[in-house]
């Protein structure tokens, strides 16, 4: 989620410090690893919010386009490789990771929380201070954009 290793280390340090300070609040029923993991995610998100970098690229650049009658401007072509074979290719995982980094921040964050960390819509919404509907819309656009960026690499022919 964070761009530099230094950012990631800082976030991890912040997270652990916060975690130990908050240890008194820890509920015995929750899994420690889940709780700690959530704190790390929150710390990463706080770091992302503090830094205002370059203006966000328009996600629209990467979304599918349609003509008046509702067809896609460019019809989709199959990705022939089966999912389990794709998952085994290390270079493809690197490509996916690098492509996710290209997504505008507000979309990348939702994609990571929902599809990578597997938080629910409600948990994601609470964490980001957004409505569940906004989360759903951003997630769908993030997935579409990622799919669109991966398409030239994975389509047949």
């Amino acid at each position, binding site marked *: 989620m964070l761009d530099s290793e230094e950012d990631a280390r800082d976030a991890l340090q912040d997270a652990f410090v916060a975690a130990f300070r908050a240890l008194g609040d820890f509920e015995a029923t929750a899994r420690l690893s889940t709780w700690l993991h959530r704190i790390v995610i929150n710390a990463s998100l706080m770091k992302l919010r503090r830094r205002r970098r370059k203006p966000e690229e328009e996600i629209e650049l990467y979304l599918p386009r*349609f003509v008046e009658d509702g*067809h*896609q401007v460019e*019809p*989709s072509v199959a990705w022939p490789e089966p999912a389990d074979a794709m998952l085994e290719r290390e270079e*493809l*995982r690197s490509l996916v990771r690098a492509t996710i980094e290209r997504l505008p921040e507000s979309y990348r964050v939702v994609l990571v929380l929902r599809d990578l960390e597997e938080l629910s819509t409600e948990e994601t919404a609470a964490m980001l201070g957004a409505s569940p509907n906004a989360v759903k819309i951003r*997630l769908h656009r993030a997935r579409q954009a990622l799919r669109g960026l991966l398409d030239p690499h994975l389509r047949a022919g």
Partner: protein
Amino acid sequence: MERAYITCRELIDFIADYVAGELDAAARDDFERHLAVCPSCRAYLDSYRKTMALTRALASDEPAEDVPEELVRRILDGRR
């Protein structure tokens, strides 16, 4: 009464709900009727699902990190 077919745009707009199993039966029927006759949308659905699977697979890539000394010091400082 015949229902109008949905367009590719409408399908793709609601594809997240379809994949999540959150469409009602009527909408699901619309989807499936469209998919049956539209190779482009079948390809889109398949690649959309694969995109989700590829993202999910990254979760198991998180490397374990040795706890750095400075971090331990900061934690101990924080606890005092």
